[in-house]
């Protein structure tokens, strides 16, 4: 649905209350989850709907855009 570039999320762990709302709203395939039960960090999301950022009760999710061609490099690393 989105024509945006993929994004990689960062979570401000200091504010995260481990509530799981970001995972609950996320339409990604199964397993797009971090070790702390939030949406995945450090790997790109190509859907980039940003619902996870919207639902976070303490607004502690941020992202940077990555160009599609950069993803292979990230995955390779």
């Amino acid at each position, binding site marked *: 649905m989105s024509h945006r570039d993929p994004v990689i999320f960062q979570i401000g762990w200091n504010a995260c*209350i481990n*509530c799981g*709302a970001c995972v609950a*709203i996320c339409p990604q395939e199964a397993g797009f*989850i971090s070790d702390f039960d939030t949406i995945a960090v450090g790997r790109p999301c190509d859907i980039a709907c940003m619902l996870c950022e919207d639902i976070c009760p*303490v607004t502690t999710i941020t992202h940077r855009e990555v160009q599609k061609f950069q993803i292979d490099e990230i995955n390779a690393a």
Partner: protein
Amino acid sequence: MPSTYDIVVIGSGPAGATTARVAAENGLRVLLVDKRQELGAPIQCSGAVSRHALEEVGVPITEEFIQEPIYGFGIYDHQGSASIIDYRQMKPDEYGTGDGKKPLGYVVDRRRFDRYLMTLAERAGVETWLKTEGLGYTPNGSDSCEIRLRRFNEDITVKAKVLVGADGLQSQVGKWAGLRTHIKITELASCLQFVVDRVETSGLLEIITGHEWAPGGYAWVFPKGHGYAEVGLGVICTMTDKNAQWHLDHFLQRSFFKERFADSRILEIQGGGVPLAAPLRTQYADHLILVGDAARHVNPITGGGIHTALSGGLIAGRFLAKFLTTGQPATAGNLKSYQDAWLEKLGDKMWQLYEEKTQIFRTNDLEERDRQLYRTMSSYFHPESEYKKI
């Protein structure tokens, strides 16, 4: 050879622990797994549940998990006018603290409550594994499926006739089977609550409506035992450009309760997503059923899901025990009767509530919407309400 069970349940919340216990009580061989080290923590719940809900599924009411008994409700409009539904006054012979009298419900500690429910399952013969995450499942022809688990870093595969996904709102099990589990952003409330000291309560669950305080949802003040209270709210993000944290601060500092909250001290901070949504249209697949939040068995008006998780667990546990004695294969087609049984007992009413809720939020006029929400909440909690039991 992988170990073989009749059923494997992923997630030991109220839904999973109850499904597992009831299935074992009815003779099935059951494995119950949860990825947490301590059930219920971190807390993502306020813990209000009716006494009826516990009795109905045979959960003994004990001090171990009760934080405070509840005797009724206070429903407020956005300016603070209230309709008080106090069963101690309406039915003084039945409800109260004296001899032979009972509370209407309780606020429970989800850490203790979930642990207790798992203990009951364990005592009924269920094998229970903590620190065990469900990673995936593969149906294996017609008689069983393989379930991949990781337990304390060890990869383990087990076999079962039916896998039960009771893994809560963040459910992955439904996704494994390709079920449509997605929740709309307009139907998932972003919630935040504080457990506080120095806020008076009086045995009532208080619910505060109004777009000004909680756009798309409502705010609450619940008694939490030991003189503590829970103050929280849920908002629908598309109806505000602020987050739940901002709204909770605003509610604490600006609402008609600001004097009541003036001395409050925050003791705990919790949150979560609450679906004000309809149940999943399909809650089964080959060798798989979903129960509780994973199937979106949640009251779409109140967001309450403990009662529906418990009674959904009872329905699922009984269904599986009966179904598996017939020797029929657990194909999607055959497991559909689980969902039919659930719809008949609970689901159809939940759909009605969902229609009612959708109608209210379709109203664009904010004042009219506030009025309708207040009216619906007040009548919902009334003793004569036809929805009282969900």
